[in-house]
C-alpha cells in the first residue's frame, strides 16, 4: 500500500510547495526593482552559502554542527526520497539498491542532527523564538524517522508489507507530517521558509559585494545606498512595505528568528523599544499583511505584542494626529537604533537591518518632517551653518589659533589632508586634535587642513534620514576637495572616515582615507615615530563601530597601543563583537528613553576588565564614555596616548637639527 501512497504524498507535497513558492515570489515582487544579476547570483549562491554564511554560523559551534547534519541530511534525503520513493528507483535490482542505502544514511544523519536541535530547544535561550519553532525538532524527527523506516522496507531489511496496514498507516501519517513541514511548509510560511527564502536571498542579495569571491573579494559593503533625488517621482525612503526593493523583502523573509541580532543589539539591552529580530519579523508581517500577534519572540522592550499590524501598501509608521493609531512599527523603534551594525555582523542570514532602518527613517524625515527631539534643530543647523551645533562656520579653526596649521588654500597641495571633523567645535575633541597635530609634526608629515572650507561630512544628516542634506554637504565637500592635490586624507573621526571612504564614491568622490590609528601605525612601522614605553595604568581598548564593523580595522589601533608597550586587556565584547558606545546614528540627538544608557553598559564592560584607562579612537565614543558618571576608567584617544608617548628629546634633537640645517643654508 505504501508504494502507492508514497509517490502520491511526495508529489502532492512538491506540487503544493511549487504553488506556495509562486505565491511567495509574488509577495516579494510587490517591492521595487533592484539591479541584481539573476544568473550571476544563482551561480554564486553555493559559495555564499558554504563560505560566507557558514563563516557566521560557525561562531556558534554547536548550532553550526547541528545545522550541517540536519540540513545536509535533509537536502540529501529529500533528493534521494524523490528518486527512491517518488519515482520508484529504490528497488533492489541494479544501481537502485545503493540509492536506498544512501537514503538511509542521509535520513539517519538528519535524525541525529534533529536530536541536537531538540536538545537546544529543551531550554532555549531567550533570544530564540518559540511558537511554531518549538515543533520544528519534532517535525524534523518525524521526517527523518519516517523516511528511514520506510526505506528500511525498500532496501529489504524489513518485509515490504511491514507487517500490517495499521503500521503502514501510522508510518504514512508520520511521513505526511514530515513532508508537510519540510516541503510544503517551506514555501507556505512555516519555520522551514528560511531555507527557501534564505537560498534565494543569498543569490539576489542587494549587496553582492559583501560576499567573498574566489579571488578574495573584500567581503565588506557598509556604505548606505544613495537615494536618487533628481527623479522627483522616486519615493523618498520607505513609507510602506512595498517601497522596499524586492530583494530586501526577500531578505526579511529569510530570517530564522535565531535572535543573534537581538542578543547583540545595544538598544535592546538598554531597554529602548527596539529589537532587530522583531523589526525584521514586522517587515514580514507588513509584506504579507496582518498583525504581529503570532510573533513568538521577545517584544520591543515596553511594547506589548498584538497591537501592531499593517499591509504591503499601508503605512509602516502611523502619523501622529492620524487618530493616534498604531501601524506596523512605532517611530521610536526606528529612532532607537545607533546604526552600530552589531545585528548585521551577527546575522547568519546576512540580513541588512541598518539599511532597512535608515530607509524608513528617510521617509519620516523627508516626507513627514518628523525627526524626534533635537533632530530637526540639528538638521536645520547643518543646512544653515554646515555643522550640527549651529556654530559660526568661520570659527571652525578657532581652536587652532596657536597651532599655525598649514591651510590647503595657501598650500594647494600636501601629502596628507587632515580632516578635522565637527569635533573641531568641541573642547574635548580639540585636545585630541592637538595631540594628533603634535604626532604628525613629530613624524614630519607634510599635511594641511581645509580649515573653514571644511563642512560636516554629512554622516549625522544621513543617519537621521536627511539624504538631501547629506548629498548637499557631500557634493560641496567633494567640490572643495577637488581643488587641491593630496595623496591621503587622515582623520580622527571614524564617522567622517567611513563617509569619505565608502559613501562619497557614489557621488563622485574617491579618496584614499586613513583613520588616524591606521596612519599612526604606518608611521610607526616605517620608523618615523620614536615612542617611549608606557608607564601608566592598565589599558583596554574600545572598538568604534564605524572603524571596526564598518571598515574592518581592528588591528591598527591595537598595533599602536602595542608600539607604546601597552598590553591591552580586552573586553569580553571587543573586535567585531564590540558593544556600541551609544553615540552613532544620531542616537544621542533623537534620544529615545530606555531603562539604562548604552554608554553606562559599555563602561561596565570596561570595569569588568579592571582597566583604569580605556583607549578610544572616535570623538563620539570619547564624548559618550566620558559622560558616564562614576566611571572606573579614564577615557583617552589613541592620538593623545601617542602624543604623550613621543620621545620629546628626539623631537627636540630633530628640531635643533633642522634649525642647524637652515642656519647652514643661510650661511651658504
Amino acid at each position, binding site marked *: 500500500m505504501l508504494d502507492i501512497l508514497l509517490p502520491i504524498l511526495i508529489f502532492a507535497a512538491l506540487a503544493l510547495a511549487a504553488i506556495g513558492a509562486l505565491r511567495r515570489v509574488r509577495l516579494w515582487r510587490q517591492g521595487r526593482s533592484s539591479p541584481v544579476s539573476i544568473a550571476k547570483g544563482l551561480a554564486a549562491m553555493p559559495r555564499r552559502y558554504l563560505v560566507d554564511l557558514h563563516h557566521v554560523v560557525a561562531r556558534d559551534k554547536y548550532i553550526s554542527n547541528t545545522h550541517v547534519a540536519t540540513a545536509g541530511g535533509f537536502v540529501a534525503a529529500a533528493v534521494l526520497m524523490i528518486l527512491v520513493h517518488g519515482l520508484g528507483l529504490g528497488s533492489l535490482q541494479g544501481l537502485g539498491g545503493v540509492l536506498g542505502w544512501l537514503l538511509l544514511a542521509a535520513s539517519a544523519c538528519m535524525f541525529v542532527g534533529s536530536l541536537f536541535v531538540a536538545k537546544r530547544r529543551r531550554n532555549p535561550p531567550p533570544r530564540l523564538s518559540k511558537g511554531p519553532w518549538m515543533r520544528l525538532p519534532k517535525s524534523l524527527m518525524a521526517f527523518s524517522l519516517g523516511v528511514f523506516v520506510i526505506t528500511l522496507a525498500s532496501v529489504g531489511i524489513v518485509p515490504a508489507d511491514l507487517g500490517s496496514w495499521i503500521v503502514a498507516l501510522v508510518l504514512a501519517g508520520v511521513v505526511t507530517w514530515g513532508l508537510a513541514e519540510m516541503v510544503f511548509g517551506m514555501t507556505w510560511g512555516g519555520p522551514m521558509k528560511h531555507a527557501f527564502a534564505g537560498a534565494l536571498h543569498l543569490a539576489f542579495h542587494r549587496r553582492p559585494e559583501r560576499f567573498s569571491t574566489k579571488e578574495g573579494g573584500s567581503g565588506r559593503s557598509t556604505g548606505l545606498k544613495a537615494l536618487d533625488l533628481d527623479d522627483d517621482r522616486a519615493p523618498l525612503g520607505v513609507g510602506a512595505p512595498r517601497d522596499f526593493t524586492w530583494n530586501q523583502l526577500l531578505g526579511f523573509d529569510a530570517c530564522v528568528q535565531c535572535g543573534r541580532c537581538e542578543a547583540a543589539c545595544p538598544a535592546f539591552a538598554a531597554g529602548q523599544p527596539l529589537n532587530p529580530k522583531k523589526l525584521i519579523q514586522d517587515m514580514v508581517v507588513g509584506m504579507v499583511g496582518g498583525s504581529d500577534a503570532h510573533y513568538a519572540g521577545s517584544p520591543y522592550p515596553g511594547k506589548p505584542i498584538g497591537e501592531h499590524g499593517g499591509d504591503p501598501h499601508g503605512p509602516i509608521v502611523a502619523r*501622529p494626529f492620524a487618530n493616534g493609531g498604531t501601524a506596523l512599527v512605532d517611530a521610536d523603534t526606528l529612532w532607537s537604533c545607533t546604526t552600530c551594525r552589531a545585528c548585521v555582523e551577527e546575522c547568519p542570514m546576512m540580513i541588512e537591518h541598518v539599511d532597512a532602518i535608515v530607509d524608513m527613517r528617510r521617509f519620516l524625515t523627508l516626507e513627514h*518632517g518628523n525627526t524626534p527631539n533635537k533632530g530637526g534643530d540639528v538638521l*536645520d543647523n547643518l543646512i544653515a551653518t554646515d555643522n550640527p551645533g549651529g556654530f559660526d562656520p568661520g570659527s571652525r579653526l578657532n581652536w587652532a589659533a596657536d597651532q599655525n596649521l598649514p591651510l590647503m588654500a595657501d598650500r594647494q597641495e600636501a601629502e596628507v589632508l587632515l580632516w578635522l571633523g565637527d569635533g573641531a567645535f568641541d573642547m574635548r575633541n580639540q585636545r585630541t586634535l592637538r595631540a594628533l597635530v603634535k604626532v604628525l609634526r613629530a613624524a614630519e608629515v607634510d599635511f594641511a587642513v581645509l580649515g573653514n572650507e571644511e563642512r560636516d561630512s554629512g554622516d549625522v544628516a544621513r543617519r537621521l534620514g536627511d539624504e538631501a542634506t547629506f548629498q548637499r554637504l557631500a557634493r560641496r565637500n567633494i567640490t572643495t576637495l577637488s581643488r587641491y592635490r593630496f595623496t591621503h586624507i587622515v582623520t580622527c573621526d571614524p564617522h567622517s572616515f567611513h563617509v569619505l571612504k565608502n559613501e562619497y564614491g557614489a557621488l563622485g568622490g574617491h579618496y584614499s582615507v586613513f583613520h588616524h590609528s591606521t596612519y599612526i601605525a604606518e608611521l610607526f612601522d616605517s620608523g618615523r615615530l620614536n615612542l617611549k614605553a608606557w608607564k601608566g595604568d592598565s589599558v583596554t581598548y574600545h572598538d568604534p563601530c564605524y572603524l571596526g564593523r564598518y571598515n574592518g580595522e581592528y588591528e591598527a589601533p591595537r598595533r599602536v597601543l602595542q608600539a607604546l608597550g601597552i598590553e591591552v586587556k580586552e573586553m569580553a565584547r571587543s573586535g567585531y563583537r564590540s558593544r556600541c558606545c551609544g553615540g552613532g546614528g544620531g542616537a544621542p540627538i533623537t534620544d529615545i528613553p530606555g531603562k539604562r544608557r548604552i554608554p553606562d553598559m559599555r563602561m561596565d564592560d570596561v570595569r569588568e576588565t579592571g582597566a583604569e584607562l580605556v583607549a578610544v579612537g572616535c570623538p563620539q565614543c570619547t564624548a559618550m564614555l566620558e559622560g558616564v558618571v562614576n566611571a572606573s576608567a579614564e577615557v583617552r584617544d589613541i592620538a593623545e596616548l601617542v602624543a604623550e608617548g613621543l620621545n620629546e628629546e628626539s623631537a627636540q634633537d630633530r628640531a635643533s637639527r633642522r634649525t642647524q640645517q637652515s642656519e647652514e643654508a643661510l650661511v651658504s
Partner: protein
Amino acid sequence: MPHDANSQTSARAQPHGGGQPSVAVLVSMGRHPLTERARRADQDARAVEMALSLGDVQPRLLHAGHFDQDSEAALRGYLGMGFDALELIEQEPGADVIAALCDRLRDAAPQLVLTGARAETDEGSGLLPYLLAEALGWPIVASLASIERIEQGEATLLQALPRGQRRRLRVRLPAVFTVDGSAPAPRQSAFGPARRGVVERIACTSLQDAAFAEWRIQPARKRPKRLKIVKAASARDRFKAAAAKAEGGGGQVLADVTPEQGAEAIFKLLQEEGVLR
C-alpha cells in the same frame, strides 16, 4: 514628536468653507543670522505653525516680493511644513508691497491674517502689519501666544506680555495678528513637500519705494541692554529680583495731553535716561 508636516493633508481633502474661518499667513524671506543663507523666517514660520494649529482650517500662504533662487529656497521652507501651494505676488526688488498685499487680501477676504512681527530681510521695521491693518481697516493684535478658539466671527486669543505673562483678548474678525518669539516653535520643514509644493505666481504691478531706495543697509548692531544692578545676598533674593516685574516707581501716566506735551514728556525722559544728550 509633536509635529508632523503633513498633518494637514486630511484637512485639505475636505472642501473648506462651512463654519471654518479662512486664514492667510503672510510669509517672507528669512536669513540665517550667522551665515546669511536664505531660509524661512523664524517668526513667519511660527505664524504658519499657529495657523496649522487651528485644526480643520486650511491656511493659505501668501508672499509678495521678488522671485529668485534665494527667495524660492526660503519659500519652499514654508511649503515643507505641509502645503501644496503658496501664492506669490510678484514684485520688483525694492518695491513697497503693502498696496499689492492689500489688494490681494481684499479679494481673498480671509478672516484672519497671521504674520511674523518683523521681517529678517530688507527694511524689517515691523511696520507692515500695522500699515496693512490700517489700509484694510481691520484691528491688529501683536505678539500672539495662541489662538484659543474662533466662534461666530470672534476670536479668543492669548497675547504674550513680558515675563511670561499672558492676556486674554476677544477680537472681532477679520483681523491682523502678528506673532513673535513667544509663539510655539515651528514644525520641521520636510524635503518632500517642500520640493513638490507649487509656487503660484501672480503678476502684479509694483510700486517702487522711493524712500527705501535711498537707504543704506548694514548689519544691525546689538542694542545695548540696560544693566539691572541687583544687590542680593542670597540666591532667593536673586531669583526674586530676576522674576520681579519692572518697578514702575518713577513713571507717570499722561492722559488728555496735547501731542506737544506728550512729546515733551518723552523727550525729557530720554534725556534723563541718557539716551539723548
